[in-house]
């Protein structure tokens, strides 16, 4: 029997560096095939060869057993292969319906016509999206629905999802899984790239694991469990260390109260919320996306513009503080480590050393009134070693590193500023499994040194693993507080959604 899609012995090199090495991948009709691997394992590149975004350096593609050459995504779409990207490829300034019908062959559409057709079409898919709504006004989950609707509209036989659930709330995730079932029932084949192993185990029929661009294993999902996948992904077992929901070690006692927030309000996002963070322990903040957790952290650290500030008080070591910009907060020792490192974390034209050194300069931690190259080099060497940043040397540019190593540089850039309080916002987002453990270790050691640490995460195992205290954020306020060892996934999730 011929497979719907077969990519045979495919290799893709970027400037002589192989991203995918001699991989054979098949997709059957109506199956959900999960593609797993660490960042940089070659998942995205592999799927891009199938969807016509990149040309393989070597290897062949067969569709229904016939050799095919796809040079553009449009060609792939004609053959029924659609890709739904991590960063959505919708046009924000057009309406939902305009986006769905955008790449039709018809040159002109009557707006009324596509709104009526769009309404019926979205209803038939059971998507609660208004076809006349501007895409820029939609949430992440709804945007994804529009992308999927567009793919279905084009009669896609194969839909490739790149990290589809990363930006979704649990409720939206359930809707997404239901949708995958429906697509499958229609005979659509799905390739599913994800970091969330539980999801892959739950919805896929087969799993392929890649490591460093090479094929490791392909098998029916029933033959895998979480541990065996992780072992295949990293070539070692980390499961207990990483995903153990309960820890054996004692929670750290609370030190002095470093940060105290009282009745903070800001726009719709933060509503009259109060919480404290103590020295020498990790305060985990769990909340769904849109619950106001990031916003509260950004107000405290001066990152959020104050236009929306509606009052409340922030106390640092017992003294009231109010920051208009991050600089005075940094100087006072409150550091915010961003959830979006590419947009606001590191400087991409600069080297690792320059990035870390800028943190020291801005934090007033350098000697002298000019830049000393020797000081910069020493600083960089120290931190590259301390945080185990894997790069050729400290002169490598940050943009060339993997997600995990980039994150370590961003963290180093903050730690050189001698913090009293570090707020980590989604510290391991887009970070590969191996680096997650290392970053968790860094965060733990900060608390052990007596620094107050706040970790914001929407990944429950991470919160449970790290936190000594857990705060749950819902609709702009902190609604519950748990002792680290008292909480379990269900109680926390219950508090977060009800």
């Amino acid at each position, binding site marked *: 029997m011929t497979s719907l899609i077969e990519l045979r012995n495919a290799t893709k090199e970027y400037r002589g560096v192989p991203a995918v090495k001699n991989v054979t991948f098949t997709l059957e009709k109506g199956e959900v095939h999960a593609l797993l691997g660490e960042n940089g394992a070659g998942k995205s590149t592999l799927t891009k060869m199938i969807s016509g975004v990149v040309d393989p350096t070597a290897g062949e593609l067969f569709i229904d057993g016939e050799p095919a050459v796809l040079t553009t995504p449009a060609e792939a779409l004609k053959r029924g292969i659609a890709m739904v990207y991590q960063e959505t490829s919708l046009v924000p300034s057009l309406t939902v319906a305009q986006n769905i019908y955008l790449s039709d062959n018809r040159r002109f559409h009557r707006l009324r016509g596509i709104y009526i057709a769009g309404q019926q079409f979205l209803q038939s898919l059971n998507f609660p999206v208004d076809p006349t709504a501007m895409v820029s006004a939609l949430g992440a989950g709804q945007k994804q629905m529009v992308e999927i609707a567009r793919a279905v509209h084009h009669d896609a036989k194969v839909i490739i999802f790149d990290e589809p659930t990363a930006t979704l709330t649990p409720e939206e995730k359930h809707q997404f899984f239901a949708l995958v079932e429906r697509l499958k029932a229609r005979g659509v084949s799905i390739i599913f790239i994800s970091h969330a192993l539980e999801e892959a185990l739950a919805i896929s029929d087969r799993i392929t694991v890649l490591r460093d661009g090479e094929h490791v294993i392909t098998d029916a999902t029933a033959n895998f469990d979480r541990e065996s996948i992780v072992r295949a992904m990293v070539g070692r077992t980390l499961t207990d260390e990483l995903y153990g929901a309960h820890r054996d070690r004692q929670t750290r006692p609370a030190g002095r109260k470093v940060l105290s927030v009282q009745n903070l309000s800001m726009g719709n996002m933060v509503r009259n919320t109060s919480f404290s963070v103590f020295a020498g322990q990790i305060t985990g903040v769990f909340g769904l996306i849109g619950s106001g957790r990031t916003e509260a952290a950004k107000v405290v650290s001066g990152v959020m513009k104050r236009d929306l500030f509606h009052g409340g008080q922030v106390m640092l070591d017992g003294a009231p503080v109010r920051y208009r910009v991050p600089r005075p907060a940094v100087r006072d020792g409150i550091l*915010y480590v961003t959830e979006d490192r590419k947009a606001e*974390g590191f400087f991409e034209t600069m080297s690792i050393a320059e990035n870390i050194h800028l943190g020291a300069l*801005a*934090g007033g931690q350098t000697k002298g*009134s000019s830049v000393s190259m020797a000081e910069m080099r020493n600083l960089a060497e120290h931190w590259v070693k301390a945080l185990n940043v894997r790069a050729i040397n400290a002169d490598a540019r940050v943009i060339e590193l993997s997600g995990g190593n980039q994150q370590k540089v961003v963290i180093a850039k903050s730690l050189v500023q001698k913090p009293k309080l570090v707020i980590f916002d989604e510290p391991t987002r887009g970070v590969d499994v191996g680096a997650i453990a290392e970053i968790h270790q860094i965060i733990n050691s900060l608390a052990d040194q007596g620094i107050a640490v706040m970790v914001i995460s929407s990944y429950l195992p991470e919160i449970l693993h790290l936190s000594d205290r857990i705060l749950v954020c819902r609709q702009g306020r902190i609604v519950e507080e748990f002792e680290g060892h008292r909480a379990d996934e269900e109680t926390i999730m219950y508090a977060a959604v009800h």
Partner: protein
Amino acid sequence: MPLGANLTQEKIVFALAVLLALGFALALPGFLTTQNVLNLLRSVSILGILGVAMGLVVIGRGIDLSLVALMAVSVAWMLTLVSGGMPLPLALAVALGFSLLVGALNGWLVAYAEIPAIFATLAMGTLIYGFGRYFLFSMDVAYIPEGARPILILGQSDLFGVPLPIFLFAGTCLIGHLFLRYAIPGRYLRAVGDNLPAARITGIPVRPVIVLQYVLSSGIGFLAGLITAASVDSMNTRLALSTYVYDVILVVVLGGIGLSGGKGGIRNVVVGTLLIGVLLNGMTIMDIQYTLQNVIKGGLLLAAIVIDTILNPRDEQTAQQGDI
């Protein structure tokens, strides 16, 4: 690494300048004489100094379209003041102060009022020219009066047989280079140009740095204006209405300072200036019409950008967090 990976726009443009110079040297008899080479350098040194001013702003992810207008108006005003009997040092101080103040205003508009630099400085250029023409002086051309003759030294003297403007260009480049590399504000400027939100979160005083870059550009512009006036005995304020400021941008972009900020340094300005210098000089010797020269300049800029894009592709792959 294949050979092409290390070819930056800077290197291409430099190679192009060398090739062009070699070609001219072989084909044009008068080209490779000491006199002509000095002439060439001297003729582009003002453009080069303005290139440094513009380069600093562009590295900080801004642009200063008021640069030439401000330089013309402040120097013309200075000459007018001296004609009216003000002592030269005082007139210089007043005009430089005015220049820096307008620069700071540009910076305030961009950093604090958050107006896009291209609009803020475009409007400022128009405003300053009109303001100068209406309130500060009445003639289009301000001639160097008797009292201001000492500044002629800037444009018309030699040192070891080399015209002074060339030294001034070299000096500006050196100071600019040291500023970007060793001064803390210089580091901050690059960081702000590279990634403004990251610079803000890191605790860099982002808005003062933006103001600083426009103050610097107007200060360096004032120096360029003085040399201009000293070279031709006058300051023609119609320069503010010409396309001269686009030549300055051409030098900067041609040299490889990306308009997206954070990329490049003073070396790029030098390389861009050299290529333009060689080209203009050669074309002048060959007696090519001014309008045709513009076609060639424009075509060259496009070619440089295209070659850079081919050699250093910024595809989705490199843009996405290194996720292969």
